């Protein structure tokens, strides 16, 4: 059994130690915020926070997470009461198809937790590992700026 702390809740899981965290989140915990994009750590759709830092959950083995804090999109807020990054993404209508957006929001959250007032160059650099194929990048950048501005 593997013990995981996800969004402040302890979960006991029966999983192969090498199982990527993403599979456990989606298939066992029904936390479907993080998305499967490439499965190779190249697109960022699966981004979650581990101890406040953004990681790609598709290439993070579940065995590496005992005693660490995992935060997923669901941990930031609810549809009724979205968190500040979520509010900013909604306000800027940053989603087209929306598939990359959970990862984008988590990546933005990681940035803002460490750098509350990022420059636009810092935002671009920090977000560069997350891809959006629809091309809403400009709205995504505005959403991150708004989230920094409106705590």
């Amino acid at each position: 059994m593997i013990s995981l702390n996800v969004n402040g809740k302890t979960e006991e899981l029966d999983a192969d130690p090498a199982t990527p965290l993403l599979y456990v989140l989606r298939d066992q915990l029904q936390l479907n915020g993080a998305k499967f994009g490439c499965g190779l750590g190249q697109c960022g759709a699966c981004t979650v926070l581990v101890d406040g830092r953004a990681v790609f959950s598709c290439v993070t083995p579940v065995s590496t997470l005992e005693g660490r804090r995992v935060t997923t999109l669901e941990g930031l807020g609810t549809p009724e009461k979205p968190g500040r990054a979520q509010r900013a993404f909604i306000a800027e209508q940053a989603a087209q198809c929306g598939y990359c957006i959970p990862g984008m929001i988590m990546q933005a959250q990681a940035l803002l937790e460490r750098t509350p007032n990022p420059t636009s160059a810092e935002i671009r650099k920090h977000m560069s590992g997350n891809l959006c194929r629809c091309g809403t990048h400009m709205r995504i950048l505005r959403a991150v700026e708004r989230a920094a501005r409106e705590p």
Partner: protein
Amino acid sequence: MPMPRFAVIASVAVAVCAACTAQPVAPDAVPARASFDPALIAKGAQLATIGNCQACHTAEGGRSFAGGRALESPYGTFYTSNITPDPDTGIGRWSEQAFARALREGVDREGRHLYPAFPYEYFTRLTDEDIHALYAYIATREPVRAENRPHELSAPFNSRALVGAWKALYFKPSPFQPDPARDAQWNRGAYLVNGLGHCSACHSPRNSLGAEKKDQLFSGGDAEGWHGPALNARSPAPVPWTADQLFKYLRTGLDDAHAIAAGPMEPVVRNLARAPEEDVRAMAAYLAALAGPPSAERLKKADAALAQAKTVSRANGRGAEVYAGACAACHDRGREAGSGGALPLALGTATTLPTSANLLRIALEGIAPPDGEPGRAMPGFADALTDGQVRDLAAYIRSEFGRASAWTDVDEELKKIREERK
């Protein structure tokens, strides 16, 4: 008690430094662009790619050739200089004579000794024609006003007089001597590798004063936190390099049987992609000859590595679990649909080096092209893995793929990388 070595050198410096100062070259505005033949400027541009001039003389996100890039060394931090033709802060008052003297003798226009972080030990081999072309290219870049940042070196290395003593001991200006017993391609390669390319600067070991150990040329060296693997017969590559593979690697940054360029090698291959093809082929031919034909034993090991590269790794233990969950999706062939796009680690040189530095840097920092440029990317695992997990992973990779005795420097290297990331 014996005198510390630097104290000996410092006293030598004081004794001889009067003899080793140089005269300034009179200031002279660089000629206007129109006075240079465009073909000469183009030739200089191609030579500059082989010299990797821009990579060192440009700060991250800074203007081209305006300097300011930090080079970490055991003696402190060097900041590269502004080599744009700005008259006040760059080399806009350097005549070709002053420029040539800097390259060949390591002396600036004003007559001060330059630190050998500027690789004049190698540039001293350049021909007049090549210096003429490089001058035409550099003199016609856009001038950028950017004051040079002083180096931050620890005593006694912050003394320019000491540089004079160092040069007296270790540096002899000398032109390239072709070897008539070798063919033209080998000689061209030797000239480029040992001159403008200054490959040995990173790929040879150095003594405590930063001078190349001449009896161990190309036996592997250290630069900017990375290890430059041996390029001679002691090459640690699991599969011996051929000239064609070296050419492909130098040209594209990737060879399927060996490596992807990372760290300080990344800008080198990015530049060589724009160099004349025949020059890169000559460098590859020279380097292949330097390593010599592989022994039967080495070829047998290479066959084993190539066979292992086709298999799915199987092993138990914490390091193997991390590998299976974090690395195998890309690095193991045939594990799952789509897996195996990245280099199989059985072929990777980083696993066989005497130091864990390269493997740890790649694992923690990943591989990424510069901002806004296309290129291959590997995510870094610095935030995903704890130090304990990185240690387990490194130990597993070393034994499973490197097939060598355990690294003893993992804790030290890991600490260094974590500090840099803070």
